[in-house]
């Protein structure tokens, strides 16, 4: 920064000029850069303010008001009434609380299962076998599939008829002992069914992140552990897991957050049913917006969703920072 400015002044002829201007070029440079920098940053900043920051402020404002779409009445201030209704009111709260519980259950199952599966796949894929790139392609391919399409294909797999793919597969595997089951129509199996297809679609993404983490662990650590007589399991425990610590925390947190944003699969496959067994916070927010146009209440729901995601993010940062202190 200083070097070019200094060079420039030195080429100028005449000592008095140099003395008088010794500090100005840098300041002028800063001023002129400020102009250019704002010009470069402004388009993106305007976009972020108008389409991200403003809606967020609006979400909080809406959640404190009674606002109905297409209603001629002006919004009236409700204080925290919307939050009370969706979280505590015996008449309305049941459904939204059920949605949050479903999000929690989804996270509680999908996060550990998907992470373990991704870790296992990454460990297999991190080996020098010739067919590995092909295998990796297969595992990663679902990631490029839009969730809407994944849901449609799996709707056929879960079909309740005896010639649904899953029903037929189970029937063949058990020699006809298992009879056809309505996977998406039974409250007990609808959410697990959605979990399964979500894992199928999402595991490749995680696997790639973990694979990158694995490859950043120095090979010398494994060599050293092997010299010390560590077995396979010990090397995994002492070298691999600690080396992947941050990656795994990241993956777990991101998957948890995604679990709370669950929407597409539910909208296409079950519309929250049967009997609210698959509804989610986001699905409730959208259906509240459409049925009755209750934007205020829907906004309150998304604010609750945001608070949960924010809490998880802060938790993640805490855990990661502590790790840095220890190192």
């Amino acid at each position: 920064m200083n070097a070019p400015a200094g060079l420039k002044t030195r080429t100028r002829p005449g000592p008095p000029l140099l003395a008088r201007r010794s500090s100005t070029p840098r300041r002028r440079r800063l001023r002129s850069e400020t102009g250019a920098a704002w010009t470069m940053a402004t388009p993106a900043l305007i976009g972020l303010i108008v389409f991200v920051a403003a809606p967020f402020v609006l979400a909080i404002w809406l959640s404190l008001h009674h606002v109905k779409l297409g209603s001629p009445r002006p919004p009236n201030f409700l204080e925290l009434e919307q939050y009370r209704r969706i979280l505590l009111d015996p008449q309305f709260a049941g459904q939204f609380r059920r949605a949050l519980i479903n999000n929690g259950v989804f996270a509680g199952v999908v996060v550990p299962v998907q992470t373990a599966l991704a870790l296992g796949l990454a460990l297999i894929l991190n080996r020098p076998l010739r067919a590995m790139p092909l295998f990796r392609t297969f595992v990663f391919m679902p990631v490029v599939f839009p969730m809407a399409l994944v849901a449609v294909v799996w709707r056929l797999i879960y079909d309740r008829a005896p010639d649904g793919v899953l029903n037929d597969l189970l029937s063949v595997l058990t020699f006809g002992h298992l009879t056809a089951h309505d996977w998406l129509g039974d409250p007990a199996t609808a959410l697990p069914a959605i979990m399964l297809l979500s894992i199928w679609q999402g595991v490749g993404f995680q696997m790639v992140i973990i694979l990158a983490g694995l490859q950043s662990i120095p090979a010398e650590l494994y060599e050293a552990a092997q010299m010390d007589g560590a077995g396979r399991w010990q090397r995994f425990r002492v070298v691999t897991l600690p080396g992947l610590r941050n990656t795994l925390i990241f993956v777990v947190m991101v998957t948890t957050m995604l679990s709370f944003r669950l929407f597409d699969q539910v909208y296409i496959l079950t519309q929250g049913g049967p009997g609210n067994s698959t509804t989610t916070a986001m699905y409730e927010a959208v259906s509240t917006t459409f049925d009755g146009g209750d934007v205020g209440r829907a906004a309150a729901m998304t604010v609750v969703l945001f608070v949960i995601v924010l809490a998880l993010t802060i938790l993640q940062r805490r855990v990661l920072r502590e790790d840095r202190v220890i190192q």
Partner: protein
Amino acid sequence: MTAHRASPAHRTASTASTASTGSAAFTAATARSGFHRRGSSRRRMVRRRAAKTADYVAMTLGGLLFAAPILYMIIGSLKPDGEVLGGLGGFVPRNLSLGNYTDVFRRFDSDATGHLTGFFATSLIVTTIVVVGGLIINSMAGYAFARMRWRGRDLTYAAVLALVVLPFEAIAVPLFYMLNDYRDTIGVQAVPFVANAFSIYLFTTFFRGLPKEIEEAARIDGAGPWRCYLRVVVPMSKPAFATVAILTFLTQWSSFLWPVLMVSDPSVRPLPLAISVFQGQPPFQWGDIMAFGVLMVAPVLVVFLAFQRWFVRSVAATGIKG
């Protein structure tokens, strides 16, 4: 499969020799047996081959498991509607024809149903605007944050980072309320997503990691910030642009929640919403629906297979720095 799972020893194996050194199980086994119990080399060969076979069997089974739904979709798209849902028979390629594909085009050929080409055009235009526009303005902002000195920079950057945390779901409803007058347009599907805090973050961190010397040389030669950005930084930053492009593309091409809220007119319906509407309308012609699915994902798959390494790298990039 489980026997090999916890075995990272292959790294040592792979560094020790470039030839295919076999499985980690083998390496671990030799390590355990030590010098006095090395066993005959023939036994080792057998063991090694068995482990390798087990690896391949596990990989084939796993690969098939992952590929099955995709395979099912492709085969189903080529079958008569009544035979798609034939249990495991759905995987048997029989009575194949391209009839479903022509059916899909015929089924979506009026303004009431929307045109298939229209769905593609909408998705393509929206995604292009978001990806190209996003590359331009987010990289410009990233350069301003990474390399230039200006008043308010650090505070502004902190605010941008704070927005990364905000999921789109949390602002979807108010955004819908805000933009309700612009329903059913291409613009409303694209414009709100061009500026992206996460893309700015990725660009900023990448630009910060570039060597400063070349830029400084350009500055001495009298290049201003715009020239430095366009002539020096952009050409050096292909990986960052590829990463952001791929991530934006994947999110945008699959975007579903926002079209659900904003689009009811079939003439500006993007592909994911279109297949969702299609699969919900009786009569269910599964062959046609699967053909629609194949058409919808085929361009993405082609791009993915051609640039797979870049896709993988992009996804990996989201994790390491998180």
